[in-house]
């Protein structure tokens, strides 16, 4: 079958065609996951000045943690700063869409929530926004997974995923770990 260079090239092109089908299948399933199942890398390109983050309204300390906004969106705001997440523990409802909004006043940080697809970098200068639905209830890890200084190894927060009926916002719509 490889008698002449022409046959060789033809066999290579047939292999290339087969391999292209392989790549198209993977690319297609990736596209399907994005289109129908809302599996996208988080990006919302929203700028915020890290130097004055602590002076803003949204990321002021009392407004951090989980809150049900007036339009019903469950939003968890977390600040990632050198060597701790504020608040170090957040409560989120299961089986209900949650929006995580994170910002950093100093370094590049990053979060993942173990056992879920929740993952984003937290870059000073930008607000990171992640939309997800937590299927399993329980206590999940939320570490900082980007090197941010000598205390990086200790930078670890918790996510308490509670069943919908145990998710009881207070008057201002806030839910915190201490209250649980």
């Amino acid at each position, binding site marked *: *079958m*490889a*008698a002449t260079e022409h046959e060789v090239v033809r*066999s290579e092109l047939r*292999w290339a065609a*087969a*391999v292209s089908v*392989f790549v198209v*299948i*993977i690319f297609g*399933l990736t596209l399907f*996951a994005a289109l129908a*199942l*809302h*599996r*996208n*890398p*988080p*990006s919302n390109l929203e700028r915020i000045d890290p130097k004055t983050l602590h002076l803003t309204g949204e990321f002021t300390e009392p407004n951090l943690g989980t809150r049900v906004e007036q339009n019903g969106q469950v939003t968890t705001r977390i600040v990632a700063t050198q060597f701790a997440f504020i608040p170090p523990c957040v409560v989120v409802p299961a089986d209900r*869409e949650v929006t995580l909004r994170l910002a950093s006043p100093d370094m590049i940080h990053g979060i993942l929530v173990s*056992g*879920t*697809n*929740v*993952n984003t970098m937290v870059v000073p200068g930008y607000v990171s926004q*992640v*939309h*997800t*639905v*937590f*299927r399993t209830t329980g206590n999940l890890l939320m570490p900082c997974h980007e090197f941010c200084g000598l205390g990086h190894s200790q930078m670890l927060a918790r996510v308490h995923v509670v069943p919908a009926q145990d998710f009881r916002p207070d008057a201002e719509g806030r839910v915190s770990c201490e209250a649980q």
Partner: protein
Amino acid sequence: MDSTHNTESRRVDLDPQQPLALREVPSGAVALGGIAVLLLLIAWILIYLLIYLPRGMIG
């Protein structure tokens, strides 16, 4: 400075028409490569279905 194309030692010199042994080339490569790529696709799809999708919405 002879560089690349002398002929002695291990390499068997090919006579003009193909020796009998090379008739089936590249069927072995297609078989081995095909199995490897197929297993790769199956592995990718298993991770896609069993780990990626159940872990929920993102982004």
